[in-house]
């Protein structure tokens, strides 16, 4: 922040949206606020607090698990509904990412709104097929993967829906870091559904490449219809390093990240088959 001159406690979503529309890029919706403190944006002079807008909830209904955007990672990790979803991968990681004293601050809406390349929550939500519910002049629902590609500036992230049709799948997250609490040098998330040992659907996401999270349908197509076998995974592990777009930065070279892509698939195989390679 440069010089923030106003902290606005919005009383409703309508109130927050009207304030943001009035101020344009000088206003920012507030999630946990961590990014706004750490990476000050000189353009922002008004912070719009959404904590009184009723967005701190997790509820389950036949359409899936809906997570209000003000829900923190700590709350996600303790939710029985989230723990039941896709083997509990999101709940587990929400309780292990970052530090204990920020897991009660980081909000689902905040991580999506900022979508930093090193973020581990957004790629996993994309793999789980999450939809984002947006509030503005009209309400919109869209796949989180599409939202990340084309953000709707000014709209409020109201909630995230984990669709019920993905609840029975198996979620997987692998993050390569220097220490447990470090940001990812490479992140791999997946959701896979199987029937009688055959993969019926798969969603593969890589992040920390060092770019943002991206789905890889070409890799999904490679594994769908195949048996959960070493042969299937080893073919995927051979292909993936040439498909996933990776780059070099201060943390790792492109070549190193390609090796990590291979390692990610090997770990995924171990998770899915229980057999270490």
């Amino acid at each position, binding site marked *: 922040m440069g010089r923030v001159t106003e902290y606005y406690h919005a009383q409703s979503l309508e109130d927050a949206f009207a304030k943001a529309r009035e101020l344009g890029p000088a206003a920012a919706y507030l999630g946990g606020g*961590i990014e706004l403190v750490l990476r000050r944006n000189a353009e922002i002079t008004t912070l719009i607090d959404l904590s009184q807008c009723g967005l701190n909830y997790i509820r389950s209904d036949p359409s899936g698990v809906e997570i209000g955007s003000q829900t923190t990672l700590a709350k996600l990790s303790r939710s029985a509904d989230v723990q039941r979803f896709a083997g509990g991968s999101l709940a587990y990681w929400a309780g292990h990412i970052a530090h204990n004293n*920020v897991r009660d601050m980081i909000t689902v809406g905040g991580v999506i709104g900022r979508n930093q390349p090193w973020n581990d929550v957004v790629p996993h939500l994309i793999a789980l097929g999450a939809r984002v519910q947006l509030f503005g002049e009209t309400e919109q629902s869209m796949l989180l993967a599409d939202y990340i590609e084309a953000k709707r500036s000014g709209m409020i992230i109201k909630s995230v829906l984990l669709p019920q049709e993905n609840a029975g799948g198996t979620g997987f997250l692998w993050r390569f870091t220097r220490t*447990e609490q470090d940001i990812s040098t490479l992140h791999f998330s997946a959701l896979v559904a199987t029937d009688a040992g055959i993969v019926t659907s798969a969603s593969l996401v890589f992040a920390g490449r060092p770019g943002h999270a991206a789905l890889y349908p070409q890799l999904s197509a490679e594994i769908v219809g195949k048996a959960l076998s070493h042969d299937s995974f080893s073919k995927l592990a051979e292909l993936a390093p040439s498909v996933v777009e990776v780059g070099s930065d201060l943390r790792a070279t492109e070549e190193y990240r390609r090796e990590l892509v291979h390692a990610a698939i090997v770990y995924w195989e171990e998770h899915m088959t229980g057999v270490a390679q």
Partner: protein
Amino acid sequence: MITKIVINNVERAFEIEPDEVLLDVLRREGYLEVKGSCHTGDCGACTILLDGRPVASCLTLAAKADGHAVTTVRGIGDQAHPSVLQEAFVKNGAVQCGYCIPGAIASAKALLDENLNPTEEDIRLAMDSNYCRCTGYEQQVEAVLDAAEKLREAAKDEETKK
């Protein structure tokens, strides 16, 4: 702007800047038991309880605490009336230079408030933000296990009295 925060069970009102962080406000207002160190949310020294949950006060906008309850280490117990947890830290040699202790105690308190049977792994996870440059981690884990045991015994005694 004026913000009202209940600090250690006492309601206080402060004039704050909209972008001030809670750590700076607390220390300015005399709550010097809250320690600052990294100012980037990495070290855990500044951890306080906000509505009972541990947060890094160096990253928490003070305005976000408006209308909420803050507990510092002195709200958990002081020298005249130490809590079971604080006594366990002393008894187990978990306090060396002492700088990280206000944050460590806050994190441990949040854990024990919701889980009186923590495993070592639970404790390490619940205190993973709290860096101790004297490296007294083992003693801190032992202290929390010790406090948990005493709190369980006290809860059992209470139950028996009923």
